[in-house]
């Protein structure tokens, strides 16, 4: 079972180091490249962990991914590339704002830190990639945005598969409460 908080903290530490380097004689190009690497690393880790938790076959695929990215199922790899591409698009806008000089050091650090939380949705999509779920925690569709701590609980049944949106032991935004109130969600297989 993946500890998403730990993963987030690993990314946060590297992001903080890269951003600090920016303010101590660095340049935006280097910072941008480092941020891109950290983002790709975090989302790849989330995808691999999600695939590994899905099934025994998934665990094997996840282990093999260290040697070749083609070990990951095509759907997961495509999703990973799409996600990283989207994140890097946001990073481009962020970099442009940094170059314009409209943000303070604290603002830049705070905004950079937001990128660390985006992997939660990536992990959820990979973990439950066998099902067509309507949304995922941390996908930006609720007011809590990337700070969402909710999880899916998919229960396959003989006649139908039901998914439950589970609230964790923290305070929740109205969006997540609303999602939980709509339980259960009948879901179909992705294949």
């Amino acid at each position, binding site marked *: 079972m*993946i500890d998403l908080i730990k993963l987030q903290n690993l990314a946060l530490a590297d992001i903080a180091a890269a951003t600090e380097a920016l303010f101590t004689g660095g340049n935006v190009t280097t910072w941008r490249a480092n941020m891109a690497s950290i983002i790709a690393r975090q989302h790849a880790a989330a995808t691999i962990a999600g695939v590994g938790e899905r099934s025994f076959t998934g665990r094997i695929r996840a282990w093999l991914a260290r040697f070749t990215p083609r070990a990951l199922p095509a759907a997961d790899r495509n999703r990973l590339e799409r996600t990283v591409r989207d994140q890097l698009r946001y990073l481009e806008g962020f970099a442009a704002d940094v170059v314009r000089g409209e943000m303070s050091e604290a603002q830049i650090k705070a905004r950079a830190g937001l990128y660390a939380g985006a992997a939660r949705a990536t992990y959820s999509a990979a973990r439950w990639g066998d099902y067509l779920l309507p949304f995922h925690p941390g996908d930006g569709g609720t007011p809590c945005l990337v700070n969402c701590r909710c999880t899916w609980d998919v229960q396959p049944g003989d006649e139908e598969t039901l998914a439950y949106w589970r609230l964790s032991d923290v305070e929740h935004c109205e969006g997540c409460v609303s999602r939980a109130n709509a339980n259960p969600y009948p879901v179909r297989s992705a294949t």
Partner: protein
Amino acid sequence: MTDLLDIQAARKRSVTAGDLSEATGPHAVIVGPGNLFAGLPGGEYAQAGLPPVGSPRRDWALSNTPYMESMWAAAIFKAISKQVALGFRIEDETDSALRIRRAQQIIIGYDGAYTTGLQRGLQDFLLTDFGMVLEVARVSNARGSRIAGLFHLDALRCMATGDPERPIVYQSLDGAYHLLSAEQVVRITDMPSPRGHMRGYGMCAASRAWPTILKLAAVEIYFREKITGSRNLAIHIINGISDQQLRDALSSSEEMRNARGFVLYKGSTLIPMIRPDAPAVVTIPLAEVPDGFDVDQERRDSYLRIANAIGVAVQDIQPLSGQGLGTGTQSVVLADAAEGYGLAAWRTAWEHVVTHFILPSSTTFHLATSNSREEQDKAAVLSTRAGAMKTLVEAGIVTAAQALNILVDSGDIDKAFLPQDVTEAGVVEDDEKVTMAAERPEPAEPLPPPAPQITAEKATPYEVESIIDRELAAAMEWVRLVVTDE
């Protein structure tokens, strides 16, 4: 949204659950147990031949009433413009500038512009039994997703499904049908019917004023035709004069219609008769006001009925002119009384809808109603209450700090002046929200000044696949660090 009672869950425990039908798609308004044909309201035709109560055809007729009668149109215009001119105020208990700004953007952007959206919505509220319909467009179909904007929906293109979770089907102009969930649509109806089968249809101002509108329109049309001679309003049989004599007497440069046996002159039919009696006239009226009809009095009565139907003070429709001071004083009393009914009820409903169903839990919306008289009243109340507090403090009944707490609780003094509210969470008004202490985020620290200039070289495009391939090994290391055995 405010953390309200889950009405849908509560309704499933209610005996009225049997009144509901499940709308599984837009077709539910056409077929299925709760469809329009099965659930049509009683087919009673209203007075003066309006289509049945609770039918779209009736709403179509009612919504066109401003084009029938100009005083009614002016009254509707005055009522609506008065609400639009009020403006609004947004408050956030956490003083979050971000939340207030976001709320303001949503409200200002109502149907493109707040004043436009409100005018369109209020016309439907006053002129259709279906009521005012507001779409809450969200960024995704996921429940609880963020609000993208508010839009007016044409009540004549909305159909009630009878399913409270999916209450309305909207037909857009491209012909598509859209089934809207309870999170996507809000409806404010005037006097919603207590009958279960009416699906929320009410009785709008136009419904209440329909007979008066017809009468006013008829009076105006009669006098217009009488003055312009554009319609035959009477037949006069004139005795003792020949046809030729009459024509010679009435010949004029205007267009005359020449028909055998009678003459049409300026809207009256004149039939000459040759009889050996003295000249005389017998008139057969085809349309006229009844004996004793006092136009001024009828109009005054009509204005009062219109004002009552809309729910405004009568002097909003018919300003005072030429009356004495006593009438002016009565006017002030009537205006104050009008604040307690009619469109004041719409204002409350609008504030509730925006505050509790659209804005976040710590943000409230108020229509601005301040005017100089109200400000004077507030000052008078504050003076009286402060005097009472002074007396209590001097008598040793309460301390100065407790008196301050009482004045904050009553809204006379801003709560920012109170270090600690010892009477917290005692009372909440309908236009307030209670934000628990745990929900209030810590205020943000002030930001430091901008960083020194940062240099940058020209950015190269990302090669996503290469970046991912390069980071896979490091990603595996992270997976090893974060995966537990649970």
